[in-house]
């Protein structure tokens, strides 16, 4: 049933439909509406015996879910930005322990300078933590991805991060069909942990592993991600069968089949890019979009195949790696190893800067003439930057 609701509420209701046993969270914008909704649902008794634990930090929030998951309860948390960084040590630990925790990241910039608005710097900073990272394009997909996330996490014994753009998706109202409990119950069986803390069958979890076996443990973590590459499309297919709509999967190609210029991006900006592509297509330009849903594991072979007709690729990076440039772009380049097409990195939408159709359109026209620099910044205020650079030069 379609309802006009806030993105955060859709996510909260989808999580609730997944029957979590323990929820723990620390408030941070723009994640707050999600956990407020869940706290209310728990208080209302809508989640049975589920415990909502208010903690003193994000580090504790992730740690509570670690303890709960290792004890055999389905565990969930949500955070953003500084919060994700504050819990980083435990984020890596959850993956190392193979605990199928699901976490929402309401993507937000990282300070300094402090900025509460949307970009992907937070989740990108944890790209090597060992979590699966899925990026939602719409509120509907954000809700759906959470249901798929628990399935993936529990089948793989890996934690899953569902990333949705802060404010742009968390605080916007859309017509959403939140997965209903009945069908979620059919799609998502009860949690059967790989191992569990049980006095009747004691195990030690979290031993110290030395040089003799550490490489093997890490290798096995990599193979779990390779398995995820196979499972993610299967789960998306099964989701489509159960719920009657496409959500998730590895990639979202749009008008790519004959495209010579392909834009690669992830998250909510895909909608704006698709609109821009439609416009350019009306003028006869062979332009397409490749949306990445599964950023970790990164589907190298699938990306390469989806870009087979491209003679140039433009990657929209909503995060910056100072000193190197694009983060997503580096993976796209790796996917195209040996393929002689230029890959342009366009850093865009940092700290909530709007990415408009007009800017995208102008940028793409330049790209089609191969006039883009290898690394450029969309809508950069050159005058302001030049002034500051001149001042800095004067101080030296």
């Amino acid at each position, binding site marked *: 049933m379609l309802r006009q609701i806030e993105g955060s509420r859709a996510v909260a209701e989808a999580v609730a439909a997944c029957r979590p046993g323990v929820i*723990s969270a620390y408030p941070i914008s723009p994640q707050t509406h999600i956990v407020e909704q869940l706290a209310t649902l728990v208080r209302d008794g809508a989640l049975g015996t589920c415990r909502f634990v*208010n903690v003193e930090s994000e580090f*504790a929030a992730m*740690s509570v879910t670690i303890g709960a998951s290792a004890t055999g309860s389905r565990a969930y948390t949500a955070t953003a930005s500084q919060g994700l960084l504050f819990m980083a040590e*435990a984020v890596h630990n959850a993956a190392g322990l193979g605990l199928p925790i699901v976490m929402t990241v309401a993507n937000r910039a990282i300070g300094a300078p402090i900025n509460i608005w949307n970009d992907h710097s937070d989740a990108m900073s944890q790209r090597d933590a060992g979590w699966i990272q899925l990026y939602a394009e719409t509120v509907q997909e954000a809700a759906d991805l959470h249901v798929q996330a628990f399935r993936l996490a529990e089948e793989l014994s890996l934690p899953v991060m569902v990333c949705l753009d802060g404010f742009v998706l968390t605080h916007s109202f859309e017509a959403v069909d939140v997965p209903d409990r009945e069908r979620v119950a059919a799609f998502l069986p009860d949690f059967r942990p790989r191992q569990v803390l049980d006095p009747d069958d*004691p195990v030690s979890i*979290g031993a110290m592993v030395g040089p003799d*076996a550490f490489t093997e443990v890490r290798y096995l973590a990599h193979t779990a991600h390779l398995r995820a590459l196979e499972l993610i499309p299967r789960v998306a297919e099964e989701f489509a069968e159960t719920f009657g709509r496409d959500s998730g999967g590895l990639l979202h190609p749009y008008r790519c089949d004959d495209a010579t210029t392909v834009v690669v991006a992830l998250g909510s900006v895909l909608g704006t890019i698709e609109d821009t592509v439609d416009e350019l297509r009306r003028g006869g330009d062979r332009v397409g979009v490749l949306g990445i849903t599964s950023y970790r594991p990164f589907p190298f072979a699938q990306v390469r195949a989806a870009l087979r007709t491209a003679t140039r690729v433009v990657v929209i990076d909503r995060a910056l790696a100072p000193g190197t440039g694009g983060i997503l772009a580096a993976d796209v380049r790796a996917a195209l190893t040996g393929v002689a097409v230029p890959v342009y990195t366009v850093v865009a939408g940092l700290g909530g800067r709007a990415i408009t159709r007009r800017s995208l359109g102008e940028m793409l026209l330049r790209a089609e003439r191969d006039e883009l620099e290898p690394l450029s910044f969309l809508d950069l205020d050159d005058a302001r930057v030049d002034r500051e650079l001149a001042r800095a030069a004067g101080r030296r």
Partner: protein
Amino acid sequence: MAAQPIRFFQTGTHVVGNRLLDPADRSVQADEHRFNSLTSGHRACQGCGEALGARYVLDAAMRATGGQVVVVNATGCLEVFSTPYPETAWRLPWLHSLFGNAPAVATGVAAALHAQGRDDVRVVAQAGDGGTVDIGFGALSGMFERGDDVLFVCYDNEAYMNTGVQRSGATPPAAATTTTPAVGPAPGAPFGQGKDLPRLAMAHEIPYVATATVADLRDLEAKVTRAMGIHGPRYLHVLVPCPLGWGSASRDTIRLARLARDTALFPVFEAEFGEVTAVSMLRERRPVREYLEPQGRYAHLFGDPGRPDLVAGIQTLADRNVRRYGLMEEH
């Protein structure tokens, strides 16, 4: 889980409890059917107070709950020496996550058990002093404040021993560590710093706070048993001498723990909801010098010229403890 049969070799009347006592009056360790939560074969140093304390604490907790205990362990010596993969010395369900998050992980375990309706299973979290008073303190304070049903045990050896004897927030004044070396006029760890965790725990007004040492193991067992009979957050602070870090002989672990109590440098007491309810009175009080002198970490205080001023300063701290906790009979 089946109990591991334990062979006792009676070498003296006080070793594992007096056989002449009624079984109900014997110590947990004297019971050949005790759980032996931490088995032999681990990698702790000779004379390790922490290994001794942990075995007594957990065996007592297992007995008190009929074997229904889950343990969460912070990073540290206890974790490293007990679980070198693929071996484990633990015979109970045991989880190690990180250095600073044991209280929060324990909260998660307790929350999951409650959600699953398994309130018969109890949670014990344990850490060294670094994992408790420093890196884990925020999480511990949060756990206390929320009222989570966890017994948190700190095995306090007064420095970061696992990483090679660096100062912690529990290192006592004048003690030399590798990061508070007593060089030239520098006196070791400074006076006036550090945290008194039992009193900080009391400030949270939790149901039960107790201190103990490995010199009085019956007292330690009794406090664990008492703690497991209470719900909500409970805190047990156990002084565990470390021969490596203290520069003491392995055979002196128990003696030093006893001297810490008898000098009043380590007051042994119980508190409920923020108020002291019982103290271990000192029958024969010892001067702090007797406790300090056998320890290498205080060697710079003695000899010629030594630092009698610092010894006097430490004596002042002991005197304050006597007053604060009423450790001596009034005459």
